[in-house]
């Protein structure tokens, strides 16, 4: 198709990659926003989720926050924050929206992971005289690690997607290449931008899959058997891609 060829030409043109509107600068903005917001969201959500999961309470809270997150349009939140008094403070509306949307998958997965850690192992550890803190650090966190990483990966991909939307109200990031293309009615540029954004989302997903496998503290010890027993309950698992994908 003609547009595809033109989009390829757009991508192959060196001048489109340089300068403040160029791909490199937009990519840098996108990655900076993604990792800053992901770090903030992890710092906020993970301790709460692990504590709640350890006590075994607040499951309904985690699930409800996660479901409510789906019902609220990202785009609406971005624009609402932009028009609020925060809107005059540069990137802050975007950052807050990104953090808000990263929290639900982090919270739900970490809660479920810690809460569903093999009860027999937890009991045994308790019988060995471990304190609550030791139990969390040495038993529950290692067991919950795969699910926590799934949450981090889902959150990361969501932040990448939301950072794209931030371009609609005029924020930075790769989405700007798409919105600029729309404004110029330059379809090849729109498609080129979309390819870049989609590729980035897939790369981020892939990197976190690999990180999750490499960093898993149980990797060498158990293999698949334990992982299978730690799946969330059957009526939850298939329902939520945040848990399964």
């Amino acid at each position: 198709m003609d547009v595809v060829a033109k989009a390829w030409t757009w991508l192959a043109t060196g001048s489109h990659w340089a300068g403040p509107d160029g791909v490199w600068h937009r990519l840098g903005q996108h990655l900076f926003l993604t990792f800053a917001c992901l770090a903030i969201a992890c710092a906020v959500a993970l301790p709460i989720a692990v504590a709640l999961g350890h006590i075994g309470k607040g499951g309904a809270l985690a699930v409800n926050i996660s479901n409510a997150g789906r019902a609220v349009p990202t785009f609406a939140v971005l624009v609402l924050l932009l028009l609020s008094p925060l809107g005059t403070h540069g990137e802050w509306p975007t950052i807050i929206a990104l953090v808000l949307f990263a929290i639900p998958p982090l919270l739900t997965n970490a809660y479920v992971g810690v809460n569903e850690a093999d009860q027999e192992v937890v009991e045994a550890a308790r019988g060995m005289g471990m304190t609550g803190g030791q139990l969390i650090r040495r038993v529950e966190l290692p067991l919950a690690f795969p699910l926590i990483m799934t949450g981090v990966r889902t959150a990361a991909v969501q932040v990448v997607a939301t950072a794209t939307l931030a371009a609609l109200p005029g924020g930075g990031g790769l989405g700007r290449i798409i919105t600029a293309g729309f404004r110029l009615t330059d379809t090849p540029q729109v498609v080129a931008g979309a390819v870049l954004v989609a590729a980035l989302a897939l790369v981020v997903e892939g990197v976190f899959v690999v990180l999750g496998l490499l960093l898993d503290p149980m990797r060498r010890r158990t293999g698949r058997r334990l992982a299978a027993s730690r799946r969330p309950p059957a009526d939850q698992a298939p329902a939520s891609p945040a848990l399964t994908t």
Partner: protein
Amino acid sequence: MADGNCLISNEWICGEYVRTRGQELTDATLEHVWITLASVAIGLLVAFPLALLARRWRAVSGPVLGLTTVLYTVPSLAMFSLLLPVFGVSVAVVITGLVLYSLTILVRNIMAGLASVPEEAREAARGMGYGPLRLLFGVELPLALPALMAGLRITTVSTVSLTTVGAIIGYGGLGNLIYEGMRSFFKAEVLTASVLCVALAVVADLLLLALQRLLTPWARKSRKGTT
């Protein structure tokens, strides 16, 4: 404060806005509803055979699940933009994008639902002389309904919220109002449309929950609607 002033002073909540632009709000809501309905309906029509194929042949299930998951990863703005050359600026871009997103959750849930059907139920039906089609629609599908409906609810709610992004090409339902309000810094328009959008998602979810209760009377006592 007098009601008429809130348009001039640009308040968040403005009764006068809702009164004077009632028609615009209704039109946008209706567009939102039909885009959502069409996307979810087509999604269901596509997902069901895909799930059956993936269940029948293991060789199909890997690629189907992999591909739908990859599609789910693509950000919405990029998804709509990538479909733009295929359909031009039309509502088909938004609906196709939303259908592609719905497949991930629907296919997985239909497969999980069918997998959860007890083997004894199948055996009993076969023993009663049920053919494969009657087995599927008479026994397996009803038993798979809870999982299917759970997936349908999640899909519908996220489709309602993702439709707003269609505003980039002018087919975003309530998203169009949000986009317009953003450009003119008109707070009441943005807030009203956003609230309507969330309300729409909640209403759709409750309707589907009610439908699920109607369709699965046998499950009423145990299920607690956590998903």
